[in-house]
């Protein structure tokens, strides 16, 4: 090839672009949404009360922010903090949420083909190396899915016997949505089959391929499940809280 032409100063300052569409809408909505839910979760976690409905030794509705309920005398704060770090860490290191907050808060980049924040960008090489620990949060998140499924089951066991309340459905959906989010995790997708180069050459290749396909299906909608499950966790907590406070009455269906 011939001599290189000198390069035009193509790098654009923050937010500068020729894009004519509303590119800022997405990251702004994402940022506001994340802020809102994090604010609610923090507030709810600090409460330490009104997070269950029913007798204290056997509540039938338990807020997912407080489940499993660890009653430790030595812990002076809200019991939510004993557990919330795990699902919080799972979401913080999640590949989808990473995209969301790198775009909305870190502004690297704020939008595609939109000028980014000028800084000494290191990506996930130095400080953010811990993102590689996502899989360990996944292990915990899978446990949580089972715990919350158990909570959902308990939500049908009222003091007067088996029944269905509006809360039973709310808690069940919570477990389902969290499951759909968790089982679409990119790390899980790697662990169940993404790490295999040749399914037909390894032991149990066919079933592993099928499981990988199922996880892939969930993974294709990981973003949607991330938002649905996040919203529903907050909603579930709010519902339990309002019933517990006596502000709304739980509708007994059966």
């Amino acid at each position: 090839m011939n001599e290189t032409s000198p390069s035009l100063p193509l790098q654009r300052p923050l937010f500068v672009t020729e894009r004519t569409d509303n590119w800022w809408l997405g990251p702004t909505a994402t940022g506001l949404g994340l802020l809102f839910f994090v604010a609610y979760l923090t507030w709810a976690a600090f409460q330490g009360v009104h997070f269950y409905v029913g007798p204290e030794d056997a509540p039938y509705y338990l807020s997912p922010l407080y489940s499993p309920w660890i009653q430790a005398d030595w812990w002076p704060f809200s019991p939510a903090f004993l557990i919330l770090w795990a699902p919080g860490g799972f979401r913080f290191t999640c590949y989808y949420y990473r995209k969301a907050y790198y775009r909305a808060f870190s502004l690297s980049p704020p939008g595609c083909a939109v000028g980014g924040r000028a800084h000494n960008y290191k990506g996930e090489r130095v400080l953010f190396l811990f993102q590689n620990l996502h899989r360990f949060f996944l292990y915990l998140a899978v446990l949580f899915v089972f715990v919350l499924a158990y909570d959902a089951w308990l939500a049908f066991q009222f003091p007067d016997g088996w029944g269905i309340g509006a809360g039973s459905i709310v808690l069940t959906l919570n477990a389902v949505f969290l499951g759909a989010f968790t089982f679409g995790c990119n790390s899980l997708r790697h662990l169940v089959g993404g790490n295999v180069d040749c399914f037909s050459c390894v032991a149990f290749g066919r079933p592993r391929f099928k499981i990988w396909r199922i996880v892939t299906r969930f993974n294709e909608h990981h973003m949607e499940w991330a938002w649905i499950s996040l919203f529903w966790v907050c909603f579930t907590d709010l519902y339990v809280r309002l019933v517990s406070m006596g502000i709304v009455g739980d509708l007994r269906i059966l």
Partner: protein
Amino acid sequence: MNHETIEHDVIIIGAGGAGLRAAIEASGKGASVGVVCKSLLGKAHTAMAEGGMAAALTTADPRDNWEMHFRDTIRGGKMLNNWRMVKIFTQEAPDRVNELEEWGALFDRTDDGRILQRNFGGHQYARLAHVGDRTGLEMLRTLQNHGIHQGIEVYMECTVVDLLMDGGKAAGAFAYWRDSGTFVQFRAKAVVLATGGLGKCYTITSNSWECTGDGQALAYRAGAELIDMEFVQFHPTGMVWPPSVRGLLVTEGVRGEGGVLRDKDGKRFMFDYIPEMFAGEYAETEEEAKRWRPGVPEGPDARRPPDLLTRDVVARAIRAEVRAGRGSPHGGAYLDIASQASEAQIKKKLPGMYHQFMQLASLDITKEYMEVGPTSHYVMGGVRVDPETCSTSVPGLFAAGEVAGGLHGANRLGGNSLTDLMVFGRRAGAGAAEYAGALSAMPGVNPDQVRDIERLALAPFEESGTENPYEVMQDLQKMMEHDSGIVRAKEELADGLGKLRTLKERSVKVRVEGNRQYNPGWHYALDLHNLIMVSEAITLSALHRDESRGGHTREDFPESSPELEKVNTVVRNRDGEMAWEHVTREPLPGDLQELLSHPHLEEPN
């Protein structure tokens, strides 16, 4: 007059399948190799090839073998093929496919994990190794990624203006860098032409701007012979609507996967167009055609549908339907895959076609008929070469791929082109390396020749010019479409030759604006010389073949002539004028002759 000079043992012009395969081979034989290409590496027209790569691998149908491939190729070529080339081609084809796989290509697989093959027009058995409908891209990328580690130098976006000659021998090439417009001379002991086709002679074409007949013209000017130039393949299925994509290819794979052609009333018309030569080999009723299934070996009661006849036959059939007023709204025929395959099958096997129609025509091929019509696609003719080494009649000059002639005769079968690139690309690379190795010294450069080329190349910047290169090119394309197109006649061809003289005069008077740096107007102006030259070769050869055969159809001579079956048309430069002659072809030896009459649908011995 001191131009940048680059030296190699072998210079290869063109970086499509043939050029890259030649480069890999020549480099493997120890030659220092430079590849010069007009575009970026990996953008060559090979990437556009969709359907597949024909080779008798026998993975899809065990009855296949090279003899059957030989028979299909010669019959598809309407007997005009150089049988020695066809023999080498069909025998070496499977090795070339396997070689690509060894270099990382991923062909679609059979259920037991071998290379899957698909049906294609004119091929008796499922024979095309393929990757969905982007086989050419897979092949090109594989060669590219293998080639970059073989010590080959690639000179991208560099256009060759003319070959450098030392006496009668090839001595290199004179070129310009597209980005800067400065000249460069490549000195070499051997030159391989792998420049592809000349579709840009026509208005409606599946070819890109690159296909301007450069190699044919370079070879002609260097004194080499061109053979069979009258045979231009019009692919039956190009898009016809919207105008912006007119001519864009719709892969034959659509028909290979079961697609059928229909007239404006939905009638399948191909049953009415089965030529005598193929009588009895294709389904004769719609009922029978329905029993045939792609991917399943056919039986005597389920012969292949006539929609899979050779391209020349199908193209003429569509044209005849349109002429008779039975065409689709925009002057084509309907191609229907929607009723023949499920949505999932179509999206899996023809994803490129699905997106092409969805994005460019807002048409869902899983639900609606496509509109298709003939589009100029490929030139069977080209530089006359030796079957073994791909050498031309000019010492040190080699040619492979579409730029070379002889293999495909009067009509090329789909899928034979990609294999051609690999088989003869390899042979040309080997031939050139061997020739270069035997040469002790680098051939000399004639300063007078360089000065002449340079003066001609810079002429469009002179104040005296009056013509716009874009307009001259459009007029040429219109002339070729009308006078030397899919159906020809004596008066029009003769008339065309006259118009070509005028166009030639206009081409030396073009004037371009701007400077030499990446100036497309200038590039077109230089391409014009090549386009006009190959157009003349096509028209002259066509004028003197008084018969219809394969890609050459004469309104005034609708039948094939047994006498003309024995000869090929050769054109060459004689004292600055284009001269033609009919040369008698070496007849097929007895055992191969027998193959041609081999009854179909039987186990070959």
